[in-house]
């Protein structure tokens, strides 16, 4: 399934999202739709591949935090895969880095 530059697939009850180059205010609608698609399929174990993301803002981080909260409430997890330094920097700035499981 594709949502703009975003790819998502379900593999053995795991949701795998591959984000495009930006995760910012203008992308939040597509990102939200992607997470909704996984929610509709009862997927709470989510891997977000961020290797393409070089630009992120607080709205982008906000979406990740919102869905991390939601899946944790259902004993799931949302992991960030291969984030670039730009993404890690903003997570550290808003004191949220430690909340995420990061896969390097």
């Amino acid at each position, binding site marked *: 399934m594709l949502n703009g530059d975003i790819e998502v697939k379900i593999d053995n009850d795991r949701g795998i999202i591959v984000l495009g180059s930006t995760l910012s205010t203008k992308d939040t609608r597509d990102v939200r739709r992607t997470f909704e698609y996984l929610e509709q399929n009862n997927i709470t174990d989510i891997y977000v591949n961020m290797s393409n993301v070089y630009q992120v*803002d*607080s709205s982008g981080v906000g979406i990740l935090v919102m869905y991390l909260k939601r899946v944790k409430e259902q004993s799931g997890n949302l992991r960030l895969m291969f984030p670039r330094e*730009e993404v890690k920097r*903003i997570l550290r700035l*808003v004191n*949220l880095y430690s909340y995420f499981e990061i896969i390097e």
Partner: protein
Amino acid sequence: MKLIFKLCIPGYYEYIQIIKNSTEKVLETFKINEEELYTTKLAVAEAAINIIKHSYKGEGDNLIEYSIYSNYKDEIRFIFEDNGDKIDLKNIKSRDLDKLDDHGLGVYLIKSIMDKVEYKHVEKGTKLSMTKKIGVDFDA
């Protein structure tokens, strides 16, 4: 404080890149490191996003005035003015550090990057003033 730069853009997210790029150009004349440059650009972008989101309630032709001042000594000041709804200043809140919270991230980000942040109502809308301390050694 002397005015260094002034810009007026319509309230669309696509124009925020212009704010980031022009901030970078201005800051290049100061001896500011790469980390400070990156975070300052983040803060000014967040300020513009907040105006579009909260003062203007979405994208549109409403104008955002952006200016940069410096005392050419140890401070740079970034000022945003809008003519949107006067937001309740008491409602401008940072994220709650004790919670995994997605609210107030933009304001938290701005406050963590800038040394002084002030919001105030002006005749036509809201004015945000963000001041950053810089090293005294600069090229300008």
